[in-house]
């Protein structure tokens, strides 16, 4: 890790302390902690210094994400949202919009990105949210569901149809016509502030429409989601590291039938597989981050691959960890119980495993076209 990434990781670890279990049970992260982390640039650490960030590359940002993910997937999810918001502004916005919005994302404002709708999940082309021109303003109307971190957000990046294409518009969460309702009792990442958003003829300045024009919807969403996939993938590496640590510690210390659990062969196999899962996920993420950092055209596909591999390994690895800790880890709030629930959601978010498989299959099919 770079110095900046290490500093960030130590700051976050210190602030989390041993409180992640309680946050999971309460379903809430302390707002002052999020604002403090936002103002220090940790939540979107890849934003450059010219906009108040620390300009980590994808690899260093990924290692930081894994460090946070190992402690608390809810907080890591908030990082994913903030980073994806920043990346969306960077990718879809013009330079004036970078200067307007990026400094806000590194100075304490929190952000969420809205893709999913009641009728548009895996098929984002069914998106119905409309952004309509009205003089110097635009009017935004639609519904978004399961938006990570929306409960905490000051700024909502809302994807919608615009001028025959699509883009995202920056909507301050307190604008009249915006209603944010928490998703009750989410399966995982319980303190990540998932919420549903209703936008009822919400008016914002036309300058808030990123890029100021309609873009091809698949390109606009793929550009934004690519960051989210990298972040989720590295977060899953963190989940696996936490599970490995908990499983190794427990199986070395607990004895059954007169010897340590780790000396039982069937237990040892679980430990070996957990280690393989962590290495496998890490390598997939390192590869995708290298593609990102070198500007490889495979970056978007590699991000899908990393997300697919890391979430699958995390879901299986967390199940192994629960199996190994058994009653010692089977209470809500416990690190492996959280991992078990959080990892399953990671196979769903930012493109389900099935959508990832379709993207990867399409990528291969194209390569053998005669």
């Amino acid at each position, binding site marked *: 890790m770079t110095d900046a990434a290490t500093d960030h990781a130590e700051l976050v670890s210190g602030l989390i302390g041993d409180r992640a279990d309680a946050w999971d049970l309460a379903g809430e992260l302390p707002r002052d902690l999020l604002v403090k982390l936002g103002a220090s640039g940790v939540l979107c650490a890849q934003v450059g210094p010219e906009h108040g960030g620390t300009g980590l590359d994808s690899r260093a940002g990924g290692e930081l994400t894994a460090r946070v993910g190992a402690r608390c997937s809810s907080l890591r999810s908030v990082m994913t949202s903030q980073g994806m918001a920043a990346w969306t502004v960077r990718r879809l916005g*013009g330079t004036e919009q970078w200067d307007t919005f990026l400094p806000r994302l590194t100075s304490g404002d929190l952000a969420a990105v809205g893709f999913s709708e009641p009728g548009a999940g895996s098929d984002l082309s069914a998106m119905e949210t409309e952004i309509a021109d009205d003089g110097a303003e635009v009017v935004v109307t639609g519904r978004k569901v399961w938006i990570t971190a929306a409960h905490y957000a000051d700024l909502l990046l809302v994807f919608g149809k615009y001028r025959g294409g699509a883009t995202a518009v920056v909507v301050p969460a307190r604008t009249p016509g915006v209603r944010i309702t928490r998703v009750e009792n989410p399966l995982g990442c319980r303190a990540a502030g998932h919420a549903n958003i209703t936008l009822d003829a919400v008016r914002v300045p036309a300058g808030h429409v990123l890029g100021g024009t309609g873009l091809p919807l698949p390109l606009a969403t793929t550009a934004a989601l690519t960051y989210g996939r990298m972040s989720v993938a590295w977060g899953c590496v963190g989940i696996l590291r936490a599970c490995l640590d908990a499983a190794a510690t427990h199986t070395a210390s607990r004895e059954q039938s007169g010897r340590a659990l780790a000396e039982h062969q069937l237990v040892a196999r679980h430990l070996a597989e957990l280690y393989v899962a962590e290495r496998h996920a890490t390598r997939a993420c390192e590869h995708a981050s290298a593609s990102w950092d070198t500007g490889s055209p495979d970056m978007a596909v590699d991000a899908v691959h990393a997300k697919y591999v890391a979430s699958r390994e995390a879901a299986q690895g967390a199940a192994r960890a629960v199996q190994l800790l058994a009653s010692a880890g089977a209470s809500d709030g416990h690190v492996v119980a959280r991992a078990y629930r959080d990892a399953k959601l990671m196979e769903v978010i930012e493109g389900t495993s099935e959508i990832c498989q379709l993207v990867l299959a399409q990528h291969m099919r*194209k390569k053998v076209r005669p």
Partner: protein
Amino acid sequence: MTISSEQGSHTAETVAQEVQQFLEQRTKQTWDPDTDLFSTGAVSSMFAMELVVHLESSFDVVISGPDLALDNFRTVNAMTAMVLRLRGVKP
């Protein structure tokens, strides 16, 4: 990252040639400079993203905001024109 010659040396011809090479390598077919890539169904949204990233890293440009419009990627000629514009080269 940069696969061709040093900064400022690109012309419409060298850009178009490089883009055509990339397309041929990726799609296993050759592309006329004014054939619509997207109407043929040969390319996906993921491929559009590949094009964006490839053009950025090959020609040292940033393609963001309105420049992401599909029309800029529709043909080899359109991509060439955009790259030259972003590099500040007069046509």
